[in-house]
């Protein structure tokens, strides 16, 4: 391409005040402005680790591996295909096994919500008749406790899952990978699975979901041949959802797709379901707030499952907290290798002015799997509505996503966003870029108190310490390979 005619041979790189760049532009000089930021403060150890994996040869391998890993998300074709008991689809979920959210943690170290969840699980499965019996059983070591993100599921909230819990099944039709995700519990938002609560009422609703609503939904899903998740997500990003805190649009689109099928079933004399059962199912779907959230998480998780184990990839595959610790996992490192830091608190707005930071439970839950797949905090620009909850303006929301672009491997062409002038959302958090830029991933979520009550919504940043530990492990594994 022919170079533009400049008034001088001198070509200038400007680092610093924009004013001087403008002066060069006004003179008709070839100039470029460096988008400079103060250097990131890194420990010598971290610097050395980053340098060790930044050699051109290794960098080429890492870049190639990251492309492979990020395309597990970009090329994924998630479908909601079925609803099945957790024990049938989650590897290793046998009797006397309880799944929880966040990095692995011992019963003794758990926050009350998780401890209560363990007890509730034993009661729900009938392994114990009383709470006291349940505590004894868990403490005896007879119960195996595993982290949800060490399996093919996601533990939103407390993420308490046992083998009998019915799960939504998401299949990535690009790879055949299956993830299992527990559905929201109708009126009992934050019931058994979410907040570890257990009561006769909650147990009964879980039974109804399993025995009455889900057979209906399974019949519909079977008839539809599964429901494609990605087009719903894509459309919702153009309608104000970021798909972590807000599912207003996805819920509407989902309802629009499933309700006609329910009505057809209602009109079908030989459906095998009672009218009451179908109408109750309909109520369950439309009256469960953020119904689609578990489906979005499932789609993210099923894509992540194919990225896990991508040798040389520095892409983040898990982000989660257990109320005490916060952890990440990396595609090119061990499947069950966690890099942890103290769980962060959120900044945001409380539902009532009576709540303060003191009431807030540090981050609990695995729902940041959506951030791993380029949604939620990374998609802040798509949802000024969510950002306004925290007093941010549209430009702030756009700024957050633009900032996230700097730590992501690529963009997802399936997700153009109006507020970005239809630029695509960034996807694939790269630990190397996080270390280089000092920018930590933005994560959205709900705030909870120690009793499990929802007290607000907000955001946090994944602690840098997680990435520092991860880069050291990454360098250890790959630098001298």
């Amino acid at each position: 391409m022919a170079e533009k005619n400049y008034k001088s041979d001198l070509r200038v790189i400007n680092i610093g005040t924009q004013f001087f760049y403008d002066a060069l532009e006004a003179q008709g000089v070839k100039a470029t402005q460096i988008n400079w930021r103060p250097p990131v403060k890194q420990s010598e150890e971290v610097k050395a680790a980053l340098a060790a994996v930044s050699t051109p040869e290794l960098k080429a391998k890492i870049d190639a591996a990251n492309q492979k890993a990020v395309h597990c998300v970009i090329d994924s074709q998630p479908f909601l295909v079925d609803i099945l008991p957790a024990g049938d689809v989650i590897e290793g979920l046998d009797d006397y096994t309880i799944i929880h959210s966040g990095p692995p943690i011992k019963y003794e170290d758990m926050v009350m919500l998780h401890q209560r969840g363990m007890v509730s699980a034993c009661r729900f499965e009938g392994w114990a008749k009383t709470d006291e019996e349940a505590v004894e059983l868990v403490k005896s070591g007879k119960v195996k406790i595993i982290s949800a993100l060490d399996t093919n599921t996601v533990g939103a909230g407390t993420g308490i899952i046992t083998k009998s819990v019915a799960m939504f099944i998401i299949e990535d039709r690009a790879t055949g990978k299956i993830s299992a995700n527990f559905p929201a519990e109708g009126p009992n938002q934050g019931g058994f699975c979410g907040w570890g609560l257990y009561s006769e009422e909650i147990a009964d609703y879980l039974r109804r979901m399993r025995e009455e609503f889900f057979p209906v939904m399974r019949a519909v899903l079977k008839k539809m041949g599964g429901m494609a998740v990605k087009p719903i997500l894509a459309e919702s990003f153009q309608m104000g959802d970021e798909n972590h805190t807000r599912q207003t649009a996805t819920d509407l689109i989902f309802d629009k797709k499933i309700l006609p099928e329910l009505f057809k079933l209602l009109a079908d004399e030989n459906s095998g379901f009672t009218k009451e059962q179908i109408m109750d199912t309909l109520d369950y779907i439309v009256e469960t707030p953020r119904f689609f959230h578990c489906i979005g998480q499932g789609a993210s998780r099923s894509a992540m499952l194919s990225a896990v184990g991508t040798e040389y990839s520095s892409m983040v595959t898990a982000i989660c907290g257990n109320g005490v610790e916060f952890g990440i996992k990396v595609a090119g490192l061990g499947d069950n290798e966690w890099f942890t830091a103290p769980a962060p608190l959120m900044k945001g707005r409380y539902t009532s002015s009576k709540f303060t930071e003191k009431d807030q439970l540090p981050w609990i839950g695995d729902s940041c799997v959506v951030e791993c797949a380029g949604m939620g905090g990374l998609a802040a620009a798509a949802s000024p509505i969510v950002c306004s909850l925290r007093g941010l303006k549209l430009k702030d929301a756009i700024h957050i996503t633009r900032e996230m672009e700097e730590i992501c491997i690529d963009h997802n062409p399936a997700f153009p966003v109006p507020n970005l002038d239809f630029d695509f959302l960034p996807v694939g958090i790269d630990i190397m870029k996080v270390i280089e830029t000092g920018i930590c991933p933005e994560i959205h979520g709900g705030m909870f108190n120690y009793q499990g009550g929802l007290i607000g919504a907000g955001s946090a940043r994944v602690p840098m310490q997680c990435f520092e530990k991860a880069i050291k492990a990454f360098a250890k594994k790959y630098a001298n390979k």
Partner: protein
Amino acid sequence: MKKVVIKRNRYVDSVSLMAVGDKVTKLPGITNAEAQMCTPANLEVLVDDLGYELPEVSANDLALAVTGDTEEHIEAALQMITDIIDHKNASGSAQYNAIEEIDLREDGYDLAQISLPGEYAAAEAMKALKMGLDVFIFSDNVSLEEEAELKQFGAKHGRLVMGPDCGVGLISGVALGAGSIVKDGPVGIVGASGSGCQEVACIVERRGLGVSSIIGTGGHDLLPEIGGLTMIAGMRRLEDDPKTKVIVLVSKLANLEVMGKILDIADKLSKPVVAIFLGGDEKLFEGHSVHGAFSLEEAALKAVELCTGKKPDAGYTDAQIADLVKSKVSALKPEQKYVRGLFSGGTFTEEGMIYYTQHNKGVKLNSNLKTKYAEQLSDHGTSIGHCILDLGAEDFTAEAPHPVFDPSLKLKRFKKEVADPTCAVITMDFIMGPGVAADPVTPFAKACKELKDAGSNLIFISNVCGSLEDPQDTLKAEKMLRDAGVIVTKSNYESTKIASAFLAALEERG
């Protein structure tokens, strides 16, 4: 010829897709172009109406379909559709977050201009030097150790290190920092004082010549720790530059040994060298063939004379100045006793004070600067007696933006001086250039005009340090000031000379 490409499970909203057809059918040989989600309604159009053959698809797939005359045209059309739906921005230049991201083999650059906070400037400058670039460092607060390291690296690798603390530069006709765009010509300037260099360059230009380069060295270059490394490198560049006929060195009085070394090197150059060390005397130049000058104007005029062989004419004659003083002073009230100077930089402030010290023997001067020429004010916010202020000094810039970039601080102080009943004369500088305030003169010209119209007898003296190419229009600014009753001179030196005459008259009147 028809071709269809299916993008599986790729959602694009219909509004984006509608943009495709219009754009793509303008390509040569293309009669139809479609990008459609494979919904039943769209399939009807694609297959039944347009006759495309599609494989098995679902509503979640995207179909790109093109009809054209040749394979080549069709491929080009498909590429364009892909670019449109991938939202590839054809315009928009590359964005860099760090200088090392630039590949100089692909995208050539010659110089890095750095104006970061001092603590970061040296590291970026070193990166640029290692990439093979010259650097211009506007930033101050860079340590002498770092400056020495940069300049030693530069000297070793033949790279020019302008600054740190370098206000002005002119390289290949490009004004850097706060400098002016001066016409090309035979005078090459190397200097440790930004406004000093700019003043010399603008005076040269006004006398019909031009400037090949202004190589700023930064204010610390002639300290023993640095040893004049950039001044030496600058001289050598100008010695080798075929356009440069005469070299001018500009600095405040500096370390004697370093100045001696500079002059020794200058003596050996093949081109004539004029040097000014503001505040120095003839003794400095004893035993050197370098032409010594003692004011910025003198340095500029000597350079012009060396180029043209003719002595350029000076501005106001002594007789004209005497008349001016006589007519203006008689109109002053008895309490109007003092000269006030409002300057945007240290060089002009000092040039004035040095002159008054030499020509108004025994006069008591005040200034915010700590110098041997004047008593330092205890409060820089209030003028006492004859008071010469550097509004670009730290005590002022800690409170407001530097007056070169934003005249509001200077304007505020100007109004304060005007309101002081003991003030008789205000002398000011104005600095032009693409990298400074867009219109530094108008607010003052307006204020002076209003005072004049209201019958004020205050005396204003000013010079505009700007070139004829600067975006602010130097000639128009001068006219505006003249129309407002301001005595407009051709240099700071001339302003000083006139102010000095007023000062003498005021002292004499008592």
